[in-house]
């Protein structure tokens, strides 16, 4: 059997892919139970709640009677997911020791929630922050074995982290070495902020950490937008951030910059610049939409349609002409030879163009050797 590599789309896919024993062990942790429950599709959540106090096995057939005909596919997805995560075997929930919270009498100034959000989001670029975060975490977890760490321990620590209260400080001395190590990496990613005290140190989870297990998108953990795009392709960004101005520079011509306002224009040249750097039109549009200023975010669409259409058109402009190295064949001896050759080229997927009247054809350069061999055989 070939090994099928399932690409985990979110945290829970990764949890579901763990071996049975490890998964069962994870469920000893309340946080994991809670995170798994919250990650389930809505129908599955409902089933779990409904069956919570049912001791006897329930037949699949009787469960199917709960849903309407329309919902059968959703029902199957929900049941599959529950089985995949071995939830139908899991009923007990035990209490867990809370991490030691920071004593309130210590007079270190804690960052405010806004500052934490800014800190957390500082490092992230065009894409949905949580999606980027997930890409990185996925690699981080799958590489953990190479570093000599147990992925199950790592997952359980990350999930636990996601249940910490945002903005609260927790003492580092409650962590084991592996977790300390992980925490340092997480601090670089903006998931936690480390705070040094005189004798002890604390970590403060940011919103990124608490959203981690929820696989939320930015739309549900929305940050305040700052960009206004006008129908004349002018763009106003109310931001003091250097990062924002650099991001805008990727695809717009920045005309002037005031202390809290960046004014620019989206031009064909600026967009071509972006496309050359591998940024797609969809990424630019979704960036503009996700970061729309509250004043325009209320409107539909938040970015004027003529602008989004034009951005897409300019992108497709680039794709209009495609250059393929090819060879041109003509002066065939007979109609039969020509047709044989063109059929041969077509079957091998190399035929680009043919003119049967004048008996000429163009074939992909990669096939030139094959074609020559074929034609020689025909003679």
């Amino acid at each position, binding site marked *: 059997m070939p090994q099928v590599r399932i690409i985990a789309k979110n945290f829970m896919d990764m949890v579901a892919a763990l071996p049975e024993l490890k998964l069962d062990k994870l469920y000893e942790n309340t946080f994991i139970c*809670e995170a798994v429950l*919250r990650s389930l599709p809505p129908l599955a959540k409902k089933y779990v709640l409904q069956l919570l106090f049912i001791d006897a096995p329930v037949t699949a057939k009787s469960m199917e009677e*709960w849903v309407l005909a329309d919902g059968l596919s959703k*029902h199957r997805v929900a049941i599959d997911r529950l089985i995949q995560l071995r939830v139908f075997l899991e009923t007990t929930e035990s209490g867990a020791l809370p991490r030691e*919270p920071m004593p309130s009498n210590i007079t270190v100034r804690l960052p405010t929630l806004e500052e934490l959000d800014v800190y957390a989001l500082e490092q992230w670029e065009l894409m949905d922050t949580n999606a980027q975060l997930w890409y990185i975490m996925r690699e981080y977890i799958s590489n953990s074995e190479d570093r000599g760490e147990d992925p199950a321990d790592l997952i359980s620590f990350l999930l636990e982290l996601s249940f910490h209260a945002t903005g609260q400080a927790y003492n580092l001395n409650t962590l084991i070495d592996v977790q300390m190590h992980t925490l340092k990496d997480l601090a670089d990613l903006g998931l936690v902020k480390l705070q040094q005290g005189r004798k002890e140190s604390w970590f403060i989870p940011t919103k990124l950490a608490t959203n981690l297990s929820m696989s939320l998108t930015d739309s549900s953990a929305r940050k305040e937008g700052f960009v206004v795009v006008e129908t004349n392709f002018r763009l106003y960004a109310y931001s003091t951030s250097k990062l924002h101005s650099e991001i805008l520079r990727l695809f717009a011509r920045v005309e002037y910059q005031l202390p809290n306002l960046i004014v620019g224009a989206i031009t064909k040249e600026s967009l071509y610049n972006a496309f050359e750097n591998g940024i797609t039109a969809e990424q630019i549009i979704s960036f503009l939409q996700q970061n729309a200023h509250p004043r325009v975010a209320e409107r539909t*669409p938040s970015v004027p349609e003529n602008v989004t259409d034009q951005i897409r058109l300019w992108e497709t402009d680039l794709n209009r002409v495609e250059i393929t190295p090819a060879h041109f064949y003509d002066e065939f001896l007979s109609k039969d030879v020509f047709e044989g050759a063109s059929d041969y080229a077509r079957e091998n997927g190399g035929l680009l163009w043919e003119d049967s009247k004048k008996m000429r054809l163009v074939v992909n350069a990669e096939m030139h050797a094959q074609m020559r061999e074929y034609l020689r055989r025909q003679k």
Partner: protein
Amino acid sequence: MASVPSKLYSDDVSLVVVLLDTNPFLWTATATATTFTFPEFLAHVLSFLNSIILLNQLNQVVVIATGLNSCDYIFDSSAPSKVEPFESARMPLLYSRVLRRLEDFLGSDERSERSNGAAAAAAPSSLLSGSLSLALCYIQRVFRSGALHPQPRILCLQGSPDGPEQYVAVMNAIFSAQRSMVPIDSCVIGAQHSAFLQQASYITGGVYLKPPMLDGLFQYLSTIFATDLHSRSFLQLPKPVGVDFRASCFCHKKTIDMGYICSVCLSIFCKHHKKCSTCGSVFGQANPEAAAAATDRKRKAPEV
């Protein structure tokens, strides 16, 4: 393509406003008749609230107590409180906070009952219209708060008989819930069906249920009433078997089968009046007895 930004969360994020019937007449009556007491009821409901909050990080629960003469917010899960380090520690806190507020409320409700005198004691219905309005006000505030908001619904846990004197207010609340697309779920825990709630759930597209066994209330709550609006379109839920559409007259607040309706403002009366007390229209001089007899004859055929 560009997605249409919606102010509603697309999925199963819910705001559940739970109306608790705290009518002392109801609970003393059930305590003697059955084994289901108010503390037991609360235990079921608290577990239910807990489950709702557990299901989604963004879920929100608001509890409103429906007393005899007053109603008040008891609990709001979104209210900023002292941050607890862990959810597990938050739960006992939730319980104690709900119970403390409930006690305060019952005390003040009793005092207002005393000051009102014996008038209310004659009709031991609770102030459903008031708590429905409070719930709708809360939901309107959420709607207008600007940011993304969860999908709201109202759950009435009602046991007291309907108060016909509240008919107009309750119906107005129901229609405003219908307009703002807020389903009203009803779970009747009293001895008899509630015509008000049957109509409320029917009109707003909510679920009406009178659990036959109150001992398993949590199972009913978790099976039926915990279902988010998103999932409801895929599930078999209890369908209305019969809805009591009877109205109360505006003049004596009696529940009636048949009556007189003002052709201008649709006010309902149990007797013929010369003039509409609501809009002031003067009614015609047609013989009321003959008209009544005519409608009687007409009614017979379709009713068979």
